[in-house]
């Protein structure tokens, strides 16, 4: 294929799309537009090793600068896309330049959901999405300082673990009655709550932030029950909002993200969307989903590139995720929102176990804590909808592979 392809966004999905478009035989002009000042870099280490100062910044790049030259990809960094003209098939940038396209690939990602309570603008209140965000947090980290983290999802808990490791005094405030409540079962929450407590993290559940105090720097957090927590710095990790505005303002359909079909195509067949910014139909789960994950960004980039180049490919993957907190490797496969039973494989007290989410006899998701084998096997068991014998499933001495009902 020849012509012009423009990619908006410069993170995991975009970097993979450059690679996949060329691999699929796109030989025309390829432009990558990113509003951050640097080449696509890995985000997962930001809340973990990079925050803890154990990761050299040069190692964050997904691909070296030479890759984009070799792929004949024009990289426009520090530039924001401001409008799509669908009739003319062109994209306007904030410097006034206009890029024509035959296919436009939106990989706009998400932005952090801001805290809206009084005092939210004080200095020392941080978010975590970009490398610049983490450099800002790191400048505030020192042993003995008091870090208050708002939100006990993946980002909040990974930050808590990284800060505790660096010798800060860490408090985590969470509105819900348990940690990671949107994504894991109560058994998993209980395990992680105990692990954080054992590392000295003060975890406050059912606690809603009412205001931040201080000035010009934050000095404390006030909660709706009147409790107060002194703070030298605050990290807010309450989720992301998909960046849909560029698409929505051009009249492209949005539904919890830029809505795409199984070919990563939006309501405009010349415009594709991939990664955190889009919602897509999941053939396996039979509903529309939006994922915030590197794996999904990577797979959708490959799917979109193939379809742009005229090779029809459907996106139908079982999603997976990972989270590192302290020495524990959590690997998640599948989506656990729709289940009727949880079966544990192994005893959480041994710090190596899996939590199986079932709908009837079908495994819909699995969380593996220091149990990589179950994670690997579960990918296949979920995809193939293998009916399981629940008794054998709950016996960690029986491999997950052998837990299927006899045919």
């Amino acid at each position, binding site marked *: 294929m020849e012509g012009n392809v423009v990619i908006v966004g410069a993170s995991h999905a975009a970097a993979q799309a450059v690679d996949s478009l060329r691999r699929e035989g796109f030989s025309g002009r390829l432009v990558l537009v990113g509003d951050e000042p640097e080449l696509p870099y890995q985000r997962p280490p930001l809340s973990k090793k990079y925050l803890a100062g154990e990761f050299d910044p040069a190692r964050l790049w997904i691909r070296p600068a030479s890759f984009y030259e070799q792929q004949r990809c024009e990289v426009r960094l520090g530039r924001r896309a401001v409008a799509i003209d669908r009739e003319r098939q062109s994209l306007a940038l904030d410097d006034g330049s206009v890029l024509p396209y035959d296919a436009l690939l939106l990989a706009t990602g998400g932005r952090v959901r801001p805290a809206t309570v009084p005092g939210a603008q004080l200095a020392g209140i941080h978010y975590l999405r970009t490398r610049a965000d983490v450099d800002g947090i790191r400048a505030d980290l020192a042993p003995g300082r008091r870090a208050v983290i708002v939100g006990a999802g993946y980002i909040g808990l990974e930050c808590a673990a990284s800060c505790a490791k660096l010798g800060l005094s860490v408090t985590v405030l969470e509105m819900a009655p348990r940690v990671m409540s949107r994504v894991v079962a109560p058994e998993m929450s209980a395990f992680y709550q105990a692990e954080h407590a054992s590392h000295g993290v003060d975890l406050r559940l059912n606690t809603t932030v009412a205001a931040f105090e201080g000035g010009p720097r934050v000095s404390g957090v006030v909660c709706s029950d009147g409790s107060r927590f002194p703070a030298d710095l605050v990290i807010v990790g309450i989720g992301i909002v998909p960046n849909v505005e560029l698409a929505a303002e051009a009249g492209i359909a949005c539904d919890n993200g830029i809505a795409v079909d199984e070919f990563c195509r939006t309501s405009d067949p010349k415009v594709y969307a991939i990664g955190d910014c889009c919602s897509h139909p999941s053939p396996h789960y039979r509903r529309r989903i939006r994922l915030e994950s590197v*794996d999904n960004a990577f797979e959708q980039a490959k799917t979109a590139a193939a379809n742009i180049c005229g090779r029809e490919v459907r996106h139908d993957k079982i999603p*997976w995720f990972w989270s590192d907190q302290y020495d524990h490797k959590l690997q998640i496969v599948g989506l656990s929102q729709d289940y009727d039973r949880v079966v544990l494989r192994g005893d959480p007290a041994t710090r190596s176990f899996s939590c199986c989410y079932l709908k009837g006899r079908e495994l819909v998701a699995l969380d593996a804590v220091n*149990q990589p084998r179950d994670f*690997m*096997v579960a990918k296949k068991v979920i995809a193939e909808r293998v009916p399981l014998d629940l008794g054998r499933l709950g016996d960690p001495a029986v491999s997950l592979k052998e837990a299927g009902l006899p045919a």
Partner: protein
Amino acid sequence: MADLIVVDRDGVEHKVEGKVGVSVMETLRELDWGVAAICGGMCSCATCHIYVDDAWLGKLPAPQPDEKELLQELSGYQPNSRLSCQVQLEESVSGLRVSIAPDE
């Protein structure tokens, strides 16, 4: 720098300069015909699978249990399988010969 001999998925052998002190994955990821390495080296995804030439296998530290478990469940698993994110490239193993495993 240490030499790394990489056999790609088409069986073509390449001699590349590998980065010392970091994992083999970080060199392979930068090659056009390299590895995906989705998790970025956390030993969490098994998308940086390689085969280590038998002559070199004994010169590398043995894999940890978590790496072994991930490897053994790959359909392309062989006794000389490794995750390249868990193999550190040092000058002492300059000339290390590895093959990129097939996509799963």
